[in-house]
């Protein structure tokens, strides 16, 4: 009936390029069903955005992928089922998740935040190299490496959270409303950073956002989530021009 269903049925093309695939997941908090038969696909190397209003189930979708909420259905990473694994194993296999509200470790130093990000890695030298790389790329983090993360500004914390997530050298990065609570100019910078990370590192990204315009600007593909259901999907440009999306998410 919905576009999502026809798409799932047609998505059996043997393309090996799908990095992350969510197939028919359902989740409830108590008696309230939050996700209904939700399916989406994130192709390798692309940026996919899920748009939706507050309470549409965006955060729950990301939490379901990391098995932080109990849900039914299946989640595959490069074709391997990860839906039943515990969170630590899922991270180990290459999923990094920046939760809503930054998810840094406020009492830890900036540098320790990055070390924790590399928790699943065993290569000490590689970790040091990566830390140096992020400090070169974002000098403000380097300057404040011994400060606690809690003392950074909102934008800096979001940068730190993203760098921390990338320290695990993930195959796919999940970003939960990165623009939340940030000034518009900083949000723009941030999304440009995501774009450049995606292009330079080839990191696949799944971003959930309310800020539709900026998110669609950097995305290849988008989904629109309403009350726990995918109601619309398409490539980013088409969605930006879709009258329904414009009215609901782009302010007409």
């Amino acid at each position, binding site marked *: 009936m919905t576009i999502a269903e026809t798409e799932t049925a047609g998505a059996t093309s043997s393309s090996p390029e799908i990095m992350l695939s969510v197939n028919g997941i359902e989740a409830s908090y108590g008696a309230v069903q939050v996700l209904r038969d939700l399916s989406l696909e994130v192709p390798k190397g692309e940026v996919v955005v899920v748009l939706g209003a507050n309470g549409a189930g965006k955060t729950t979708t990301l939490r379901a992928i*990391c098995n*932080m909420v109990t849900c039914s259905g299946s989640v595959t990473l490069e074709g391997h089922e990860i839906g039943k694994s*515990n*969170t*630590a194993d899922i*991270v*180990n296999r290459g999923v*990094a*998740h920046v*939760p809503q509200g930054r*998810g*840094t*470790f*406020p*009492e*830890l130093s900036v540098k*320790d935040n990055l*070390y*924790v*990000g590399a*928790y*699943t890695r065993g290569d000490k030298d590689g970790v040091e190299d990566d830390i140096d790389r992020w400090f070169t790329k974002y000098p403000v983090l380097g300057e404040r490496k011994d400060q606690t993360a809690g003392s950074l500004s909102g934008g800096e914390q979001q940068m730190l959270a993203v760098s*921390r*997530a990338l320290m*695990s050298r993930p195959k796919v990065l999940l970003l939960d409303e990165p623009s939340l609570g940030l000034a518009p100019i900083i949000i723009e910078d941030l999304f440009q950073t995501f774009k450049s990370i995606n292009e330079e590192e080839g990191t696949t990204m799944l971003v959930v956002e309310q800020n539709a315009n900026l998110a669609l600007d950097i995305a290849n593909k988008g989904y629109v989530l309403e009350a726990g259901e995918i109601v619309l999907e398409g490539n980013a440009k088409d969605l930006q021009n879709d009258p329904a999306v414009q009215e609901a998410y782009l302010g007409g």
Partner: protein
Amino acid sequence: MTLLLQRIFDGLTTGAIYAAVAVALVLIFKATTLINFAQGELAMIGAFFGYVFAVQTDVLDFISEDDTYLKTWVAAIIAMIISAILALIIERVLVRPFDPTDHLPVVLITLGLFLIINAMAGEIWNYQAQSPPMPGLFPNNFDDLIMVGEARLFYDAMGIVFTLLVMLAILFFVLNRTKMGLAFRAVSSNTESARLVGVRTGRVLGFGWALAASFGTLGAILVAPRLSLQPNMMAVVLIYALTSAAVGGLDSLGGAALGGVIIGLVNSVGVGYISDWEPFEFLRATPLLLSLIALLITLWFKPSGLFGTKAVERV
């Protein structure tokens, strides 16, 4: 002058013991924001484990017939390991199944453990002071001392303070220089984000419980020769340790150690001098009162304790 020095020495020694238990409490609080009310009893049963190896059985006799200190030290280390394992089991079986954001069930469990461990120790070893007594880790005869001016500084007092400093150094090293320590700090700071970077938070909390239990056990073994080993010996120590932790800040390990020393000094120097003044003689019978006043004054000016960052919540 001599009296003051003597009281400072005494205060530092008891303070070091309060500090050991306070640090154990804070370790758990930092990771879970709850108070483990069974911490004192875990330490007490740990001291009994040490007693079993040091006195009640001869399994360690091969170490040395005449060097009782070495034997006691080995017994203490075995006891610390056994209490660590016991704490791991308790955390895994009784604590982890409960929702960590809901404090009430776990607090009730730690209170239940308090009673169960106490009763079990009473059943096994009875409630009398154990005889022969728990041997000390340091020479503690009446003439094992040096004179500082006219004040007596006992070897075991120095040993207790020194042991605490070494334990704090080890703890600092483990927390700041090892991967497990980093994971522990990450879980303490933000449990959900720690899970999302691949930390197995359950194991890390188990590690925290184990570390806390062995720390507390060493504190109990240090205090056992002074208080005489019996199942209720840690009840009062736990109250002082809680006071110390609250004074220093419930989420600060250094604060807890310093809080222990402060409460030790309040108890010895403060109570000593104030109770010399006749209207306050009653303080000698209720020395805890002055520590609680010190706590009230601290919290009045700094609700999170001297070095704490989180204000204390009601449970």
